[in-house]
């Protein structure tokens, strides 16, 4: 293969294990230019659109907010702020349905838009970003609320800050877009290649890689051409657009790295460990906006596709726009619509309602027909055919992991590298027994996490329990010490008496004193220490008694305190 526009010998590509050739269904939605979606009446902006800590609101109900204004700040290092996508009034801060596989609600800021789309005052655009300090660039990326836009939603500011020990040799731009139906990155690269490359230039300035590889599946010839054309005029050094064979899931981070560099990201590891960092092309475009124009991430390209949609297309969507309004702008549902998926048919999840907002990582709304996303039908037992293992791009043994996940033996499942599973769905797709393998793996991962957390909690509880036991023992010891001090005091007194002439056997005196103490202790215990055992179903009268007893107890405690203190002081 030779791509004349790069004037370079063809790069040797590598192959990852397994994978699937799927009908790509991309022609449905990539035929028309991307248009801005209509401004909705209400924007529902979730406070958590990223991995990490929930953002903390900076506005209150009733506030007027401007487009681009930060309305919630990041909390902690792994977190991202959120911004108002248009101007209007905050009408609610509270739980709203969000796009999440659980179908649960989570905290959102709801803005009633005023139609003015009035921008907050932005600082002057930056022309020469290279003159800015890298830390300032990172700060801009963080303040712009940028997260991985390929679906991961990991805060980008963290990924552009490799540790001092990490040397990034290769910057990989992910334009593979391997999942069927989704074309938003395709359209972005076709229409805004310059913007993507401006982001790449900033990433290069931050990470100083030796080479930059932009991986694009070869079913997107227009995007490849547009990126190459932009590259020729863009003046980026050591940067190459690399067409890669179309094979699901080539857009998986580890798979793309393997294809482009032949390197394997270690099990349980991250690419930075082998000197590679991977960013989505959409993220690069958002970085360009943030650094050059000081604009936060408030919109993105979204694909609306599937046989269940009348006019499949891509729209440029303000974050917080309801999915239902986008479907309306794509002509509405057809009769074929059987389920609505956020993301693609392989890795996406079913939405319970279309009344959820678009978030920063939402790349596709797929109203799939029954044929496009068939229900697998009832599962039958595993016949150990091994097809799942042959298809697994992470070189795992899905049938083994399934066996243990099903038995809820999570430790064993983890021994088979459960956590290296990228949930691509290849195994389930090929399984002749229709076993929902990925569902088992998702379950097993979540459950492992929960147990890990529970383990930490119980470790904590054990420490608190031990601390309590130790404290009670200490108190007991202190009490004993006080008593023996008192005893010493008594002894002194007896000794004094003895000196006064009346000779008394000291042993006898000690025994008497001990008996007296024991009696005191017993009385005291009876009065305050013993917990009532039969306190259920109390009548009012009984309750009164308890109250009175309590009062007496308190008074008695006061008295004994004074009594015990006096001799000690003396």
């Amino acid at each position: 293969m030779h791509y004349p526009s790069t004037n370079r010998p063809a790069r040797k590509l590598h192959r990852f294990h397994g994978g699937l050739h799927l009908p790509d269904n991309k022609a449905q939605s990539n035929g028309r230019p991307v248009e801005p979606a209509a401004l909705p009446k209400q924007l529902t902006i979730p406070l958590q659109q990223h991995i990490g800590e929930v953002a903390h609101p900076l506005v209150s109900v009733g506030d007027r907010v401007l487009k681009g204004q930060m309305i919630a700040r990041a909390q902690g290092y792994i977190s991202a702020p959120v911004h108002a996508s248009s101007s209007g009034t905050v009408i609610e801060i509270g739980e709203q349905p969000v796009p999440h596989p659980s179908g649960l609600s989570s905290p959102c800021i709801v803005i009633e838009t005023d139609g003015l789309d009035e921008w907050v005052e932005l600082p002057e655009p930056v022309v020469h970003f290279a003159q800015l300090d890298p830390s300032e660039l990172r700060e801009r990326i963080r303040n712009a609320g940028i997260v991985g836009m390929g679906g991961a939603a990991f805060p980008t500011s963290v990924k552009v800050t490799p540790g001092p020990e990490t040397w990034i040799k290769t910057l990989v731009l992910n334009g593979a877009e391997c999942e069927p139906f989704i074309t938003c990155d395709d359209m972005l690269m076709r229409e805004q290649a310059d913007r993507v490359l401006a982001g790449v230039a900033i990433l290069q300035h931050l990470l100083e890689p030796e080479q930059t590889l932009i991986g694009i599946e070869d079913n997107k010839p227009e995007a490849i051409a547009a990126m190459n054309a932009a590259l020729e005029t863009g003046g980026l050094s050591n940067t190459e657009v690399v067409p890669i064979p179309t094979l699901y899931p080539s857009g998986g981070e580890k798979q793309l790295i393997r294809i482009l560099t032949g390197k394997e990201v270690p099990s349980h590891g991250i690419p930075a460990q082998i000197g590679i960092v991977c960013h989505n092309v959409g993220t690069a475009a958002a970085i360009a906006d943030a650094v050059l124009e000081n604009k936060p991430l408030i919109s993105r390209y979204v694909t609306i596709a599937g046989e269940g949609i009348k006019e499949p297309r891509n729209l440029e969507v303000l974050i917080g726009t309801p999915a239902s309004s986008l479907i309306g702008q794509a002509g509405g549902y057809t009769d074929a619509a059987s389920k609505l998926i956020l993301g693609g048919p392989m890795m996406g999840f079913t939405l319970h309602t279309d009344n959820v907002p678009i978030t920063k990582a939402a790349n596709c709304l797929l109203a799939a027909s029954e044929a496009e996303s068939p229900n697998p039908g009832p599962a039958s037992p595993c016949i150990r055919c091994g097809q799942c293992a042959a298809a697994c791009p992470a070189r795992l043994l899905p049938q083994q992991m399934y066996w243990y996940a099903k038995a809820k033996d999570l430790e064993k499942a983890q021994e088979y590298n459960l956590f290296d599973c990228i949930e691509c769905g290849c195994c389930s797709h090929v399984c002749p027994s229709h076993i929902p393998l990925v569902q088992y793996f998702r379950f097993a991962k979540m459950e492992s996490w929960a147990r890990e957390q529970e383990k930490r909690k119980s470790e904590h509880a054990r420490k608190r329990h031990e601390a309590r036991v130790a404290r009670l023992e200490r108190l007991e010891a202190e009490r004993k010490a006080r008593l023996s001090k008192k005893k010493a005091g008594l002894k002194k007194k007896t000794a004094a008496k003895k000196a006064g002439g009346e000779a008394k056997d000291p042993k006898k005196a000690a025994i008497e004193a001990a008996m007296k103490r024991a009696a005191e202790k017993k009385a005291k215990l009876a009065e305050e220490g013993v917990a009532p055992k039969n306190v259920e179903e109390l009548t009012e009268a009984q309750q009164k008694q308890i109250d009175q007893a309590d009062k007496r107890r308190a008074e008695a405690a006061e008295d004994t305190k004074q009594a015990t203190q006096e001799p000690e002081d003396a």
Partner: protein
Amino acid sequence: MFIAIIALSLLALGFGLLLGYSSIRFHVEGDPIVDKIDALLPQTQCGQCGHPGCRPYAESIAAGEDEINRCPPGGEATMIALADLLGKDPVPMDDEASVEKPKATAVIDEKECIGCTLCIQACPVDAILGAAKQMHTVIMDECTGCELCLPPCPVECISMVPVKVDTGNWKWPYPDGAETNEVTEATAG
């Protein structure tokens, strides 16, 4: 999704190391097998196993005096973990331990509380804050849900409230396996 998984596995690794470290750092001398069993128990100290706390139950298991299926808060997961540790076969949960309750924490109705401190004396993990004659409060994060504070309260103002499920702690459910004609004792492998 891809990067999410990597990020999560990285975090998992981090926690793993942390746990490993803390087990070295906070190692206490004692019978190692009892420690290992105790480490798998949920530390609620609830006594539902019939022993006065988690450690006594661990001691009893170690001595071979009691079964591994008696801990209701730990449920099946703890039973399987114990079976793995001890090289035993998993056994069905004990009758009383077979129903898994949703996680809950204690909440004191602060209007009703008379400040008698009886619950404080009962709580094995010092999760209740208060002083004599003063309103008491449960520190949610510390409460293990053992229910030991319920019986002593003379005014019955403590109730157990299930932990709210949100997008942060929601878990993918166990698939409704239709492939049920399979052997379930799969752990034998």
